[in-house]
């Protein structure tokens, strides 16, 4: 199977967590909150675009309420493929981490 890059994985997770409210800004803020560092826009959107191209996420356009400017906003939604991908990643991660000796123990 093709592995995702770490940021792609994080992005997918963020979109999953945000459910219906996953759009550009909220995704970035979610990522920043989870990782604890500031991200450059390019580092977020280029992989996001790649995820979209590869069919892991899809988009939905919705008008914003008038008091917020009334401009269209793009929401991102996990596709079925994306969901499967996340599940398989979770499994791999769990397997990989399963028999790791306690890292806090000294040599």
């Amino acid at each position: 199977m093709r592995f995702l890059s770490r940021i792609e994985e994080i992005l997918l997770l963020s979109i999953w967590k945000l459910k219906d409210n996953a759009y550009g800004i909220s995704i970035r803020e979610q990522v920043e909150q989870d990782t604890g560092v500031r991200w450059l826009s390019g580092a977020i959107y280029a992989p996001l675009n790649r995820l979209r191209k590869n069919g892991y996420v899809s988009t939905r356009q919705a008008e914003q309420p008038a008091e917020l400017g009334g401009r269209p906003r793009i929401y991102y939604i996990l596709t079925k493929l994306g969901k499967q991908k996340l599940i398989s990643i979770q499994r791999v991660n769990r397997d990989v981490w399963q028999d790791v000796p306690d890292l806090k123990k000294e040599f």
Partner: protein
Amino acid sequence: MKKHPTLNRMRWILSRLTNDAMGTSIAEDLAYRFVQDSKEHGPVLSRIRHGFRCVVIILPLYIEHVFGGVSMLKNYLKIALRHIKRYKGYSIINITGLAIGMTCTILIFLWVQSELSFDRYHENADRIYRVYKKYQMGEETGYNPSTPLPLASAAKQKIAGIQVSTKYTRSTVLVKYGDKIFTENRVCCADTSFFNLFTFQFIKGHAETALSTPNAIVMTRDMETKYFGGQDPMGKVLTVDNRGEFIVTGVVENAPVHSELRYDFFIPISFITDVNAADDWGTHWLYTYVMLEQNANLFDVEQEMSAMIQERLPEEKISLHLQPLTDIHLYSLDGKPVGMRYVYFFSIIAIFILAIACINFMNLTTAYSLRRAREVGLRKTVGAEKKQIALQFFGESLLFTCIAMGIAFVLLQLVSPAFNDVTGRSLALDVTNLKHILGFFLIVIVTGLLSGAYPALFLSSFRPADVFKGSMSRGMKGSTLRKILVIIQFSLSIALMISTSVIYSQLDYIKNTDKGYTEENVLYLYMNRQLRENYQPMKNELLKNPGIKNVSRTSELPNSIWSIIRGIVWEGKETDEGAAFGFAAIDEDYIETMQMEIVQGRNFSKAFPADSANYILNQKAIAVMGYEDPIGRRFTLDQDAPGTIIGVVKDFHSLPLNYALEPFVLTLAPNWYRRVLIRVQTDDMAGTLRYIENVWSRFVPGFPFEYGFLDERFDSMYDAELRAGKIFGYFVVIAIFISCMGLFGLSSFTAEQKTKEIGVRKILGASTVKILYLLSKEFMKWVLLANVIAWPMAYVVMTKWLQNFAYRAHVGIWVFAVSALAAILIALFTVSYQSIRAATSNPVDSLRYE
């Protein structure tokens, strides 16, 4: 959310780079961040951060969009560098060709820019004009920038459209401060309005008041150092011509190189004007400049001004006109593009050289394209689009150009001192000048586009099936275009070569034309008051030295006599004919000193006291008057003192050869003597000079000994032509060099292509000479064809250039023939290295693998 002005534009750009969805998301995010930022950091910082963020986001998206990701770009770069390294010869030829081409182009454009910027630094340069007059003289129309003294102030008073007017003249005076005495020939006699009209940077003193008193003097920074060293000059007293005392009232910045105004000192014009001259409209000796009002009508002002002078001088056919200040350097008064012509010439050379370098690149890249054919095929097979491949190779060309740019930049620094030496300017690429930087990058981009576009399209059009089947004829694709390009390249080189030989033969012609006098070994000194008084004893003393043949006095140097005299009366002259003759005041020894030839009559002589009212004319003047037997005829310049013609001299060139022979009159007029001419004939020039200096200091104490040689003035008289010749020469060598590099590359390519053919031919008994012929004949055909194109091109351009001169060298067929022969030999020589190597190689090596 607040509305952000650039949001929509941003969204549009981003959408083009990716897709609508991405564009919308990112633009929204950027706007959001901007609003957040401006709350936190204030408007300025947030704007900077916003700008930075935009760039940072667009770059990776762009790379992804165009190349399909950063990794793809890395791959392209790696492949490109690998190729540069593997095919060193090819890369070196391409890069050096481009670098030299770019360097030349940049140098020439720097020069052109400086040429076009003459006098543009004045604040209102577009509204400043020089007044010149146009006058009718029989059939001929004359142009002259000298104007009468009262014109400036009268015009300002009477004519509505004139905002400021000023007048000035340049004079040569002796300036003395303490023990420092120098002859200064860039002394402007002007008044305060001069500083109002033109823009001057005053370091000390004020423009408004500097020349307001009759004994004020203003100097440039260089002069301040020359006379005062570190002292403060303000208020100090300078002695001018040993008679006037002047108080320094100001110091201005040195005269810029790109200005037609040349000055070291300014003194009030009253120093040289006569009180009685205030209403003298008949004597024309000053330059008048005017600054027009914003909305003034040029034509109306000219009309009014002409009316003004016609009223004063009703019998003369004179009209006044205005020439824009910024045109003075580039156009002559009758509108001929004297300076502009060189601007065009050199721009064309620049374009030629760049074109030659680009053609090299195109040719070599397409010729060697076979090496890349498999790469292209493979890339296409695994899914690359044509657009992507084209971009890849285009990017590669840009990479070459960028490397060449770096080299060009270094070359510029190395070469510009030498270039400045030839051009007499101080040109340099100024990295703080936005114009220069933009120009530099423009040239780089143009070079990249020119040289990269065709190879990119060519390579990207390969079809994978053809490539892998091997059915693509080896390197033969695009060979027609390649031929045409090489022919163009050589046509340009040959045309440049012919032009250069024509320029040099014209310069040679000028040097060797019989001028009617002998310039060599004549020394000139400046006349001054003291010398005037002590002339006779000093002359006697000088003639005691066996190395000194003759000593004489005259008004102007014999090879540049600009004086013209009108109001001439002669026997049988039709009164309305406004004849103007060249004019020089000479003494009895002049004709002998200059070794001129008297064809009829006699020389001036001390034995005939009446000679002061007599005249010697040249043959042209006699022809103008239509005399068969001129000697003894009545002739005069001055109605009150009638004189006769006593002699006729052979025609002589009193002006640079750009000008035609003039009818000329020579007269004894002691008041006009300004120069002393000394003919020396000696093996010990240094000793003779020492002797002259010695005599000088005895008879003319207190004046510095300053002299020059008449024939040295040749260089300054034909300055523009000599410089043009030199610059042309250098660039032609470079153009040919670059062409040859290209030819070298192509010939090695051909030799490589034909290795097997040569092997087979040799086995079947072909001789080395036969094979050499086989390899070279193609190139020779191209060069011959190039000649056919170049000849008419060079002929047209050079005929045009020669029209500058009244006396032209004959452009014989041999100039063309020699250039053609040279081109053929050079091409043959270039090609021969590779050909000989291929022809003498052992067929075993080339056929071993078959």
